């Protein structure tokens, strides 16, 4: 057969480092996303702790202005692109095929490719630290602060190229999950029987497909401005416009907020029924509210720009759309509350985090409605009130929701339970620490503290509240230590979980923990929204299949990681090219060739290795 296109032999061993680097198994890729996101969560958290140490006292000189500016830039970029998004991806990957009764995603190698681009893009951006060029222009990189004139080092180049590399992977993942969810559902798994988490994944995948292109365009314009002296954002006299960047960035940026929060909403919508022992109240409304949020999310971006002087008409229109988006959000919150009604509520750790999500996200939503009032926004914009607001949404909302998901599905992923007492300690430390950190920030905003300042004068009266905030951040840090200990402890000596430790209703709990690599011995037929609770629709699966009878799964492949590496190095080569033309061109051309080779290898590679196929037959 002409199919043997590999230079290297295809790695077929089920364990070891090569198995992980070449894996195309959605569950392993999910775990890779999760572990990587957790690493960056620690990194972004440390950046935040250094900022809090600096701001704990007036006129502090702990870090320089340049360092502080780099810290808040990378804290924001890291938490958005390297923590919350990939955490969502970790859950999509691990859970979606299990929840819809599939054996993998639609394009397993593309899935691996997405992960490696995310990892390499994140490494490329953070590599700037070692080149003394840590990005320092703020996570939304407003022009013209990013132009060659005002950003002299390569810091902005690392930021742009890192985001572009990660963006390719994210966009690929968006398509992958749309196709997976629309095409790979088990018989009987109609759209309106899908778990809410799968619905939210579908919406997020569509949001990614439509929201990332504006970001890619903006970043490409900026790249061309910086590398090839084009004039999109730089020379005002020659017709460019710095506001163009803001429009493009926020047309991406606001849907991005829903890309970050919808997975957490999905998780909570599946956790609440399990721990109240009753179906989600108004499933249809919760699903459609999510769809409406997805659409409206594209029509509110100007509320990030109310003070840029777009005029009364633009401000009035976008104030109205921004208020409108509170309606579907409110519907979701009321439906979650109504799910509690009549329930038999069990306060396990996943439930505590889900309730933390519910209350904290609601407060973040309410302060968000306040920004829709343009008059109020003219005082709140770019102050600590905004910082407080989006941390209530993204930490109190997204992170609490995702943590609920970790406690809920860790038994399925690892086959072991997390400790309940340690989990509860983790919750209460995080809940108290979170509120101590972010509640006073509202007041700091009201009394006039702008965001992104590395220092403040003593007579401003900002110091006492900043001390509370910094103290609260230490409690969050402690909570994360407790969490890490809980995970580490369970990985070594956790109690066995069994198939369905929570008595949950959805399909992923019908199979062993951790699942076989082929997920389902036979593809189940689904007859209900809550198949494991519905006696008439009970899914009874046979035990593990004998080895000779296992379904044939796609074999591992080198090509996704090779192609991702080549793309990232081409981006890196562009930066080298800035300083050393020959060296840069050498890297770009050699890595371009490797990329071409990888594409051919990928396309011509059979799904299963010959050796593997013949072993089956």
């Amino acid at each position, binding site marked *: 057969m002409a199919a043997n296109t590999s230079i290297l032999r295809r790695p077929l061993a089920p364990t070891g480092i090569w198995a992980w680097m070449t894996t195309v198994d959605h569950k392993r890729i999910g775990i890779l996303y999760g572990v990587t996101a957790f690493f960056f969560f620690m990194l972004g958290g440390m950046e935040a702790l250094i900022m809090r140490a600096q701001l704990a006292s007036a006129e502090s000189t702990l870090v320089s202005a340049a360092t502080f500016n780099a810290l808040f830039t990378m804290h924001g970029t890291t938490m958005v692109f390297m923590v919350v998004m990939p955490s969502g991806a970790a859950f999509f990957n691990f859970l979606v095929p299990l929840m819809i009764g599939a054996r993998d995603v639609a394009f397993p190698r593309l899935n691996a490719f997405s992960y490696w681009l995310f990892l390499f893009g994140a490494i490329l951006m953070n590599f700037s630290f070692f080149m003394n060029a840590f990005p320092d222009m703020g996570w939304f990189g407003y022009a013209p602060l990013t132009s060659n004139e005002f950003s002299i080092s390569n810091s902005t180049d690392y930021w742009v190229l890192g985001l572009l590399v990660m963006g390719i992977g994210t966009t690929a993942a968006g398509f992958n999950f749309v196709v997976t969810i629309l095409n790979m559902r088990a018989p009987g798994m109609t759209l309106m029987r899908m778990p809410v988490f799968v619905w939210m994944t579908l919406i997020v995948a569509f949001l990614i497909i439509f929201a990332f292109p504006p970001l890619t365009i903006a970043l490409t314009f900026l790249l061309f401005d910086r590398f090839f002296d084009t004039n999109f954002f730089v020379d005002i006299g020659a017709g460019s416009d710095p506001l163009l960047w803001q429009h493009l960035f926020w047309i991406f940026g606001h849907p991005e907020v829903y890309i970050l929060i919808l997975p957490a909403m999905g998780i909570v919508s599946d956790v609440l029924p399990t721990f109240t022992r009753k179906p989600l109240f*108004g499933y249809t*409304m919760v699903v459609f509210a999510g769809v409406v949020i997805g659409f409206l999310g594209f029509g509110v971006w100007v509320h990030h720009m109310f003070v840029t002087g777009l005029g009364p008409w633009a401000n009035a229109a976008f104030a109205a759309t921004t208020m409108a988006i509170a309606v579907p959000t409110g519907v979701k919150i009321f439906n979650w509350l109504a799910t509690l009604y*009549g329930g038999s509520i069990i306060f396990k750790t996943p439930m505590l985090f889900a309730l933390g999500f519910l209350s904290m996200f609601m407060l973040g939503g309410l302060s968000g409605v306040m920004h829709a009032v343009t008059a109020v926004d003219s*005082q709140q914009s770019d102050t600590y009130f905004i910082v407080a607001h989006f941390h209530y949404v993204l930490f109190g909302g997204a992170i609490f929701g995702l943590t609920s998901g970790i406690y809920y599905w860790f038994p399925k992923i690892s086959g072991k339970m997390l400790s309940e007492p340690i989990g509860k300690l983790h919750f209460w430390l995080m809940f108290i620490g979170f509120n101590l950190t972010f509640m006073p920030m509202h*007041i700091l905003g009201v009394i006039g503290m702008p965001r992104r300042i590395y220092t403040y004068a003593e007579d401003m009266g900002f110091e006492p509240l900043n001390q509370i905030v910094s103290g609260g951040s230490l409690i969050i840090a402690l909570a994360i230590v407790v969490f890490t200990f809980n995970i580490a402890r369970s990985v070594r000596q956790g109690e066995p979980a069994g198939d369905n430790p929570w008595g949950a209703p959805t399909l992923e709990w019908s199979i062993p923990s951790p699942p076989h690599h082929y997920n389902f011995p036979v593809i189940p037929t689904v007859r209900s929204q809550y198949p494991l609770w519905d006696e008439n629709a009970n899914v009874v699966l046979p035990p593990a299949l004998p080895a000779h009878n296992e379904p044939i799964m796609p074999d591992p492949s080198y090509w996704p990681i090779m192609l991702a590496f080549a793309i990232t190095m081409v981006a890196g080569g562009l930066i080298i090219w800035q300083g050393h033309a020959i060296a840069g061109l050498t890297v770009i051309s050699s890595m371009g060739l490797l990329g071409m080779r990888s594409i051919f290898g990928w396309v011509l590679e059979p799904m299963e290795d010959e050796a593997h196929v013949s072993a089956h037959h």
Partner: protein
Amino acid sequence: MARFLTFRTPILKVALMALLLAALSACGSPQSTFDPKSDVADSILTIYILVTVVASIVGFAVLVAMVWLLIKFRAKPGVAARQIHGNNKLEVAWTIAPILVLLVIGIPTMFWIEGSAREPAPDVLEVEAIGHQWWFEYHYPGLGPDGTDLITANELIVPVGRDVRVTLQSDDVIHSFWIPQLVGKTDMIPGRTNVLHTFNVYEVGTYYGQCAEFCGEAHALMRFRVHAKTTSDFNSWVAAHNAGPATPEPGTAAARGALAFASCSGCHAVSGTAAQGRIGPDLSLFGERTTLAAGVLENSDQNLRAWISDVRSFKPIPEGARFMPTFNAMLDETQIADISAYLRSLTAE
């Protein structure tokens, strides 16, 4: 003054203010948005309080309902969960309810936007503010000698009881002009001219302002002051500004400083003298200012000398940025002291 919709119900306003300010007053700040001193800041606060109260009521109600549900429906032995799938009437109700609540805040929002778009009074004072990394320049069109611009920097002087309309521009990156007690912020964007909401200051006093949009390394140190004066004080300030300084008595430090200042005049201007540099801040009537270095340092002889000697020990200026050089290598200590004496002698008296 009734350009804006304001809720002139004293009981409501006083009660709510007392409630909300209880926590805030303990940490009084010169940049508090809850201590307005102009008509526009006042009208913003009115609507601010309205939305805060509405949001607080909704938030509190949901939290109470949640806690009640959690207690009432906690798992009890022998009590099974009721398998309720939904209720169309209820769900329609709580789709409509948020719409009604949003109307309560949405309608005043639209009225406020409409009010803010109206023309100012005919006697409006026009000011053009220009943002620079990291200081502010102000032009008063027509108020200078012979109908030219009166130009000053960092400390904005305005009359009380008269509409002030500030147009905003930027010389480099995006800045944002914000005087929390007087007016909400509006961005200064290169290539565009924005207009700050017209404001009318209630009381004579000094108000703090600060750049609110991240504008590079020294963003945190881009501050300013607004001095609101009575109309007659404002007019005398304009007159003194245009008259220029009296010639300092020969032999004094100020007189020597006036000569040494020639080396500064390439960048700085002092109205009524030969110094007409327009690269750095205008220093006319510098002795009247309360701060230097864009609201960062108190205007004292010691601070001024230290600032001239080495601006970089006060502001983090990145390499290559267009900013004042470090003078301790170019001028000796006596010259710096003389220049300081000269600048501080530039008063209205």
